[in-house]
């Protein structure tokens, strides 16, 4: 595990919402082709940290980020960085499936279109098919690509959102509680998908389910009150964590 190169490096990352400080000098490195789970109680800063990785915090007024985050060698907060291009490299899947109110086909082809990744009909057809394949949705939707994405079940919608994220060939995929609105079967399919996506992408996932973190990730980072308290191999984290706060949290004990 320790020889895996780092895809993203977070150094002394702090986030302020106005006067309120939400993250305190977090140093967390994200390994390539690895699933990193961010866990911790509500308000601990895990989602805030996740959003710093593709500058989603930029959209929040009064939000200020200090410290340094690099993607490969690039400082993603450098003024010369094109945020739209950054978000193509670092994609995101949200808690609630949020397909565009358009057809399944257009949901997936939208990203490649605005980023100019496909031009001809054949190219679009191909990127739509391979993205839906990667998201494990192709067989379920191939005969109704022109029906609205919003007509799919919750689990299918979430996989459509993953297909949409995958379509622009990102390097990193951020997932903010991607299964919290899904039933156990849909959750299992998404987890299986995460497992497969890991071969080609670097994944960072925020989850409130300890079992999910234990199942899908190789590395786990535990946040508490805006601090990173422990980062460890997932196997170690859930059988014998080093930090008392991690121990109490994952075992459901009073902290």
């Amino acid at each position, binding site marked *: 595990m320790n020889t895996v190169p780092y895809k993203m490096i977070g150094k002394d990352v702090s986030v302020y919402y106005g006067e309120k400080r939400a993250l305190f000098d977090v140093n967390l490195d994200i390994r390539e082709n690895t699933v990193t789970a961010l866990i911790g109680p509500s308000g601990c800063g895990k989602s805030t940290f996740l959003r710093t990785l593709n500058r989603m915090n930029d959209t929040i007024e009064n939000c200020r980020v200090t410290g340094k985050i690099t993607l490969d060698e690039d400082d993603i907060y450098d003024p010369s960085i094109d945020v739209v291009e950054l978000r193509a490299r670092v994609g995101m899947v949200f808690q609630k499936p949020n397909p565009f109110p358009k057809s399944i086909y257009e949901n997936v082809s939208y990203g490649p279109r605005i980023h100019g990744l496909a031009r001809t009909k054949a190219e679009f057809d191909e990127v739509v098919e391979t993205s839906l394949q990667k998201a494990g949705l192709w067989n379920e939707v191939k005969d109704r690509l022109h029906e609205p994405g919003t007509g799919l079940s919750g689990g299918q919608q979430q996989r459509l959102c993953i297909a949409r994220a995958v379509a622009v060939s990102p390097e990193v995929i951020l997932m903010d509680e991607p299964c919290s609105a899904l039933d156990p079967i849909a959750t299992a399919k998404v987890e299986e998908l995460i497992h497969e996506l890991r071969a080609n992408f670097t994944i960072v996932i925020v989850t409130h389910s300890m079992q999910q973190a*234990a199942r899908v990730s190789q590395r786990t980072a535990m946040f508490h009150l805006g601090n990173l308290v422990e980062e460890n191999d997932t196997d170690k984290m859930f*059988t014998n964590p080093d930090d008392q706060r991690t*121990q*109490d949290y994952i*075992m459901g*004990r*009073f902290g």
Partner: protein
Amino acid sequence: MTHAHITSAFDEELKYLTRRISEMGGLAEQMVADSVRALVNSDLALAQKVISDDAILDDAERQIGEKAIVTIAKRQPMASDLREIMGSIRIAADLERVGDLGKNTAKRVIAVAGSGIPRKLARGLEHLAELALVQLKEVLDVYASRSPEKANSIRERDEEIDAIYTSLFRELLTYMMEDPRNITPCTHLLFCAKNIERIGDHATNIAETIYYMATGAQPQGERPKDDTTSTLGSVID
């Protein structure tokens, strides 16, 4: 320092396992002590009691196993909670085996009763049993305290039991060579000695399990061994 669970029913389930293990431990101790007493005093009634007590221990192990399975399914325990439950299953299995060994000794009481046991041999067996019982008692105390240091020190003491067992083994062989009529009772006694020696091994297993429950790591190093009976024949020849 560990806090209570947010779900108090989970704490109750863990407490149930701890309580049942302690009960099993107490009964196993009693059975071992009774079986050796029955043997040296040729007390058939006591032997019979040990044999029937074993069923209680078997039931307890099954109940602990079932409760552990249900708790895992319901709570999906993590970290030390998970180790606690897995440890309970293993310790219950070791204690159940201790009960079996006591029962086996008790069954041999009838066979040995007719010929009587030479005083010297009886003393040796009693001494071996004392040591095994001290180990069992101490390991059960460590189970209550969860001290990894004490668990490790118990593990290191199994050597003493092995050494005494080896000397009993020699002694029994000598008796058998002196008079072939000794062969039947001495063979039974040899099995009894072996039973008691195995109890020490189970106590050591339990100590290792407790160490793992407390620390999440396996105890380091080989366990010390002084049981050389597997090569003894060549020495006698």
